[in-house]
């Protein structure tokens, strides 16, 4: 499966509402920054919404239109729906005020609290910082929020998405001029099966407390 298929599946998943919390937020940000991706999501939303037109209707039994004219019910959502709103800024505030945790020189992280087994975090690389050659156990999704980086696969700028899996080895370097801020998802730890599976899973479980 090529990268564009992966990207489209992410967008389709978002449109259908099947993604969990971390990926929903991640794709929200992707659509916010990338107009091509937003267009695809819109096409898919339209196609799915058409199913609503032709659906076999089932009338609600107890519900009446007057039950919905209740500004209190709508009220609690009303402050939240601002158009053209950066989906992340409500969650983490201004990037300038983020309490970054230094991982090594020039490379900082901030974990975004989500109720999900996927890790969602912000990564900040100072200008010119490199990450040593590595590959990934699970899948990793990287969205550039600001600045840019380059690696063996090209240059990635604001709004670009990179998806890495086990087969990919890369050596990313942040732009010398402006550095790079990215949003990343690393998929949950592998669950082990078989004879020693439960012991390995227990180990992963304990390890998760020390993350």
């Amino acid at each position: 499966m090529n990268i564009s298929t992966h990207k489209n599946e992410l967008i389709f998943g978002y449109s259908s509402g099947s993604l969990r919390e971390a990926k929903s937020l991640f794709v929200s940000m992707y659509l916010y920054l990338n107009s091509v991706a937003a267009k695809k999501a819109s096409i898919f939303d339209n196609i799915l919404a058409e199913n609503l037109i032709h659906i076999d209707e089932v009338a609600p039994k107890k519900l009446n239109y007057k039950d919905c004219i209740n500004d209190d019910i709508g009220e609690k959502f009303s402050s939240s729906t601002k158009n053209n709103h950066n989906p992340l800024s409500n969650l983490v505030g201004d990037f300038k005020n983020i309490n970054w945790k230094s991982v090594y020189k020039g490379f900082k992280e901030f974990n975004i609290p989500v109720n999900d087994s996927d890790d969602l975090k912000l990564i900040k690389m100072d200008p010119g910082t490199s990450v040593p050659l590595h590959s990934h156990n699970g899948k990793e999704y990287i969205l550039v929020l600001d600045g840019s980086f380059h690696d063996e696969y090209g240059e990635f700028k604001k709004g670009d998405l990179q998806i890495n899996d086990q087969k990919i080895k890369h050596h990313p370097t942040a732009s010398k001029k402006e550095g790079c801020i990215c949003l990343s998802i690393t998929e949950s730890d592998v669950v082990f099966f078989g004879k020693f599976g439960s012991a390995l899973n227990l180990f992963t479980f304990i390890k998760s407390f020390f993350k």
Partner: protein
Amino acid sequence: MENEKLVELAKKISNNRDEKAFSEVFDFLAPKINAYYLRNNMSFAQSEELTQEVLSTIWTKANLFNPERSKFITWSFTIARNKKIDLQRKNKNRKAEDEDIRQFLYQSNKTSDYEIQSSIDKIKQELDENQKKLIKMSFFEQKTHKKIAEELEIPLGTVKSRIRSTLTKMQKFLS
């Protein structure tokens, strides 16, 4: 009901808080939204509760609907879908006071639907009835591949490969 008519009703709701107009939207949409949730495996009580929330949101937020950017049915669908995402999240022992994920979800549709209408038309032309059915079952009704295989009485592997080839076909018209 045609999009034009729905747009007109939405304007009346937003500008005049017109209850009569809202009742028409309700009669049109509530049985569809309710059916959508039921098809997504919700209980009748849960489905009705969410349908009420969707229609309440339409009543309070009709001013945010922009006919230049989207069809009314698409806008309503995305509200219904986002409520479903939020419910799935609440089901995982979220506390009531936890923040509502919907405020972090992407809301605004920068591209106009009319601009992309040709892509949609092409995709609809290209896909045959079986492929449309698979997209509907998998993405609209969120059925697992296994469930689809059982319902259509075809092997699981066939379901997977057909969905894959349908998506590949669609991708041609996405860029």
